């Protein structure tokens, strides 16, 4: 066989794989992705701690009992994730035919089955969906922090940041962060505060968000298929 034909054959076979069997590429890439191994029990405890703190903060802030958020979740496997910088997207194996719609929240569960926000469904295909996670630089979410319920804006990124925290807020590291955006379920745990900083010459404080999980370790997420995003808010 001539050499040109060999390269042409390789090219054609690869293109066929890209379009007909993309999952093979995802599996190979998953093998290539190395992430720090962390004790699962420890991670579960961190998630559990976060969700309990968020419950306490939510209930304490409102001073009345609220119905807890109970979505209709379907579990899904993570096929693949965005390979370049600045964005963080996950491809999952649930799509339109499973009832997934854009805007639905994606969560993982703590030991006591409390949901912790991972991201939001961004794009839906017939059998798969793309989730934009809190580690995506385009991600933004209105949140409240701690028992006093200080308002803040969560900005996604490699290190998600809590911005626009009012200067007079009584916030401590380790306080729970939960969603208050109309486009997300109220009171959904997002994480806890880390490195809270107040600058004397600025009106607002800033902090980092500790999520309690590593985005590269996510193999399963759950989607609330009953949640309807409120449009135009």
């Amino acid at each position, binding site marked *: 066989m001539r050499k040109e034909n060999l390269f042409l054959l390789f090219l054609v076979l690869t293109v066929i794989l*890209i379009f007909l069997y993309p999952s093979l*590429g995802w599996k190979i*890439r998953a093998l290539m992705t190395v992430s720090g191994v962390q004790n699962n029990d420890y991670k579960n405890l961190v998630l559990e701690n976060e969700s309990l703190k968020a419950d306490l903060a939510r209930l304490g802030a409102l001073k009345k009992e609220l119905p807890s958020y109970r979505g209709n979740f379907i579990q899904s496997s993570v096929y*693949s994730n965005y*390979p370049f*910088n*600045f*964005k963080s997207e996950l491809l999952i194996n649930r799509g339109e035919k499973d009832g997934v719609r854009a805007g639905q929240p994606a969560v993982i569960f703590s030991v006591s089955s409390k949901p912790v926000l991972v991201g939001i469904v961004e794009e839906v295909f017939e059998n798969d969906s793309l989730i934009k996670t809190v580690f995506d630089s385009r991600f933004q979410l209105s949140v409240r922090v701690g028992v006093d319920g200080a308002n803040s804006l969560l900005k996604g*990124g490699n290190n998600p940041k809590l911005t626009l925290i009012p200067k007079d807020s009584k916030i401590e590291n380790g306080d729970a962060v939960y969603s208050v955006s109309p486009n997300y379920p109220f009171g959904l745990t997002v994480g806890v505060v880390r490195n809270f900083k107040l600058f004397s010459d600025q009106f607002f404080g800033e902090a980092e968000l500790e999520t309690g999980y590593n985005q590269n370790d996510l193999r399963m997420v759950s989607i609330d298929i009953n949640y309807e995003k409120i449009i135009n808010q």
Partner: protein
Amino acid sequence: MKKLSINKFAVFFFTLIIVSFAQLGIKAEFGWSPELILATLVLSAFYLGILEMAALCAFGIFLLNWRPLPGLEIVLFFLFPFVIMYVKTIFPWKGMINCVFGAVLSVAFFYGVSNWGAIVSNPIIFAYILALTAVFCAVLFQIFNYFYKTSST
């Protein structure tokens, strides 16, 4: 027609696999990484023929594609090496300068088109990405230059 080389292609093929391990590993550890894969594909435009490079680019996007159908980023990734292959014939500078500039401009254009807002909000990380990609491209170019002649000379 330029003589095709299976050996040279195999070297680039395995280099791409090693570089993919490195890029994905760095990103998993630090949250961001220099664009080593794109730099390798740009570099291949200086050493491989068009058919070999097309096969290598196809394999690269096979590894990187993360959606059911390739999106804008993947299309850009496939096109850049071909653009560089054409552009290098126009500019009179040495191969290494063309290669490093080609890689840096490719990365800048890639993020400028696919996620402009991220560059504005993360200028320092973006500068690191450009600088490290340039250094990696220069080093890899020198290594290949020791063993092979560039396709432009």
